[in-house]
């Protein structure tokens, strides 16, 4: 197709220069939090394995996870977990064609963001 002019045609915005709407960023963040949660899950399983190994090893693992740094990582994981949880539920409804209207999506955006923060604080208050 040598006669096609490929140089002067308008281009659609590339992903990197296009300002994504909030809903897309939240969707990407769901994937990122999902991948990051492996770290949290591995730490939790390590805590159990240490408990099965010996009381001395468990004291070290339990102490590390309840130190300020451990708490920082776990609270971060907790928020990631609730965010993934809230947006996962929204995606589940979308899979069945529910709540896909624009107004409904922009409302549920804030439910997901607010819900993840509220659930994180609520969990910290309960435990």
């Amino acid at each position: 197709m040598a006669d096609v002019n490929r140089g002067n045609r308008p281009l659609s915005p590339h992903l990197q220069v296009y300002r994504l709407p909030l809903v897309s960023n939240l969707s990407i963040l769901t994937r990122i939090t999902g991948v990051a949660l492996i770290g949290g899950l591995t730490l939790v399983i390590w805590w159990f394995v240490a408990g099965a190994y010996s009381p001395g090893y468990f004291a070290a693992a339990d102490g590390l996870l309840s130190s300020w740094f451990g708490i920082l990582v776990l609270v971060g994981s907790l928020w990631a977990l609730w965010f993934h949880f809230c947006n996962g539920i929204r995606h589940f409804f979308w899979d069945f064609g529910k709540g896909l209207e624009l107004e409904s999506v922009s409302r549920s955006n804030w439910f997901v963001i607010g819900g993840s923060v509220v659930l994180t604080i609520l969990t910290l208050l309960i435990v």
Partner: protein
Amino acid sequence: MAFKTEYAQVHGLGKAGEGVHHWWIQRLTSVALVPLTILFLIPFGRALGGGYEALLATYGQFGHALTAILFIGVACWHFSIGIQVVIEDYVHGKALRVSLLILTKLFSYTLAAAGILAIVKILFSA
């Protein structure tokens, strides 16, 4: 099998050869994780930082041990198929893609087995 037409043998299976099975398992595990996450987090958060006695007091109870085993098993399953989708989307070289997929599966199954075995041992030693 031999009596099926060629079309019937592949109908609904798609390019991956297993149809919507993967999609369905992802939904099944996410729905299961909704109650399991809540049931797991509360006793775990309370036992965390409480030392060895708190561990035995919590996971020496059958119910807490059972929820923790179910949570870890289903979460590792959900994680293994979730990471598989991420690798399939972003890793394009075949050798690297297959290697990463194998590593993901081995890591998630090891993680699940280690967690479940540890909780069983804690339950019996309490």
